[in-house]
């Protein structure tokens, strides 16, 4: 009890300290209530550092690249007559549509992300199912084991696959020793390596939502089905699978969205011909130093990939809220 009292008076003294009182008074004078202030802090932070940057990107995507600092032209200019001139340059967008590279990169990112998502689902579902059906103490340990790799560096986990895929790496050495192959397979710098990398990295993101969905499934439903003569396999396809659709969707979204914009995995494991849009954007920015085109690439990515996904997710959430 004494500790509570001590803590209380300590906190009290903090809030009664002059700086606090003065700030409160000052803010009250300009019409800020405590409540409004609390709301304003995170809202303003996110406005300035999250929302406004997109307006900046949109603006720069409409300007021309210059060899200068910063390397883009200004949209607004005062001409000699003192009139405000606005010069919009849609050339960057035209360039993106005109050059097949970008369209291929968009499509390819989507293809790679989708296929990886399917593999994550195929591998993740049995694991999630197994964990959900395990006794509770075992369940917690298994879950912990799923989450644990996530806490170790993502970059290093991707990097570790280089050792497996290299021409003189672990897999080739094993296969050569077993006599299955006579010369090393080329795995590093291929799409295959990218697929493995993505599935490996995002597997926990698939398993966790699936698990939390499956664990809520009532065993009674399955027992009822068995009681009514359903064989286990039939019960699974008729009951468990349809009921786990929300988990499948949630997991797939968590894998698909970041996978589309992935940069590190194609950069480390993929070859020069593994075109993914995140990497194209990176190169456009760091190698070509074409900021306006990089901006246009990200605006299109935002409009074509992210906004639809967010819309679907939002719809999904409101559907769940209604039911």
């Amino acid at each position, binding site marked *: 009890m*004494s500790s*509570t*009292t001590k803590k209380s008076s300590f906190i009290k003294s903090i809030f009664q300290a002059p700086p606090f009182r003065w700030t409160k008074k000052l803010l009250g004078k300009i019409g800020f209530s405590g409540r409004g202030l609390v709301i304003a802090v995170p809202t303003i932070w996110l406005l300035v550092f999250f929302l406004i940057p997109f307006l900046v990107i949109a603006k720069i995507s409409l300007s021309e690249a210059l060899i200068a600092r910063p390397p883009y032209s200004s949209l607004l200019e005062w001409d000699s007559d003192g009139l405000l001139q606005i010069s919009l340059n849609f050339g960057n967008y035209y360039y993106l549509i005109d050059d097949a590279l970008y369209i291929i990169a968009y499509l390819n990112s989507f293809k790679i992300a989708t296929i990886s998502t399917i593999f994550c689902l195929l591998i993740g579902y049995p694991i999630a199912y197994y964990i959900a059906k395990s006794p509770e103490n075992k369940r917690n340990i298994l879950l912990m084991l799923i989450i644990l790799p996530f806490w170790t560096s993502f970059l290093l986990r991707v990097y570790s696959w280089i050792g497996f895929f290299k021409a003189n790496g672990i897999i080739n050495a094993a296969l050569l020793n077993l006599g299955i192959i006579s010369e090393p397979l080329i795995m590093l710098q291929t799409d295959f390596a990218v697929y493995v990398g993505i599935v490996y990295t995002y597997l926990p993101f698939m398993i966790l939502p699936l698990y939390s969905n499956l664990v809520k499934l009532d065993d009674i439903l399955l027992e009822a089905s068995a009681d009514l003569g359903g064989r286990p396999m039939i019960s699974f396809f008729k009951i468990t699978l349809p009921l786990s659709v929300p988990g499948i969707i949630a997991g797939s979204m968590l894998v698909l969205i970041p996978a589309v914009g992935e940069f590190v995995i194609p950069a480390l494991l993929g070859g020069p011909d593994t075109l993914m849009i995140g990497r194209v954007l990176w190169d456009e920015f760091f190698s070509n130093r074409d900021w306006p085109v990089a901006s246009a690439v990200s605006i299109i990515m935002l409009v074509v990939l992210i906004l639809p996904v967010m819309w679907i997710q939002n719809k999904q959430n409101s559907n769940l809220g209604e039911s």
Partner: protein
Amino acid sequence: MTTDEQNIITVQPWHDPAAKPFIRLKNITKKFGSFTAVDNVSLDIYEGELFCLLGGSGCGKSMLLRMLSGFEQPTSGSIEIDGQDQTGVPPYLRETNMMFQSYALFPHMNVEKNIAYPLVRAGYKKVEINQRVEEIIDMVQLNQFAKRKPSQLSGGQQQRVALARSLIKRPKLLLLDEPLGALDKKLREETQFELMKIQKQLGITFLVVTHDQEEAMTLATRIGVMTAGQIKQIGGPQEVYEYPNSKFVSEFIGSVNLFEGRVTEDTENHVLISSKQAGCDIFVGHGVSCAPNQKLWIAIRPEKMNISANRLEGKNNIINAIIDEVAYMGNMTVYHVKLNSGMIVKITSPNFSRQNSEIFQEGKTVYINWADNAGVVVPS
């Protein structure tokens, strides 16, 4: 005035027009958009009372409680506690305390700290806090559990911690939201009496909200029966049971047989009501204020009806019927009998002797009857 009358007045201040109410709700209305949760409720509660608000879920009883504790503001109307208007007084400054339905024990504090919290917040001295906590822990018999966390306690123990915590500041009014709702039946019955004992001992005014009519009947000095945001009737347990003022109250408290009918004969000391459902004229042995030919209902409790094998002569209110179902309950037998009109009437009959020869079998033709003053006439 005799001493007897004086006693009645001190025990039942609501019968004394000069008595000053301790809690006063005046025309309280609470609206959410177009939905009216509480509809023009006025209620006086006297010091030391154990008042029960009884009603089904969504009837507005919990909203009244939340307005008394200050979590919600009434849309219109005022609340007075001990003569002080509570408008705009935040919960933490009100001299009411609440025992939550979920108990709302602080999971990170042990029993002792939970109970001490109100005193710590109020800035009491450590010595006094310790002494008062010890006292109240004694009272609710939690001495062995003082150092335990709420999660290590049984439901009944948690309930006692919640009670102790809400009482330690000696509030002017203790609000109890379904205080026994989470306990199993046996524990609930024991705790009811414990609660009454503690209330008397401390003399604190209690306002209990419950949906359990048995609980309300056992605990309350008075009961307010609520439905659809309104208080339908206020009265002592016996009053609301024996003299319900409406169909709703008669049906809500206990079970009842309701016969619909019209007044055919209206005199000062009796009325005759013709009821198609009963299949006969019902004789009511007292005057009823009503218009001629008015439609009304007679409410008769199952235990106030009799079943006999033969027609009893020289009595009013006798109907021919067939036993439809019989349920033997031990202390009594419950019959469902079917009248000629098709209406099913529920009758209970105490089992005085251990032989079951007096129990009527299904399908038997019987006569049911009731006394002239057994029923209550309700206008709606």
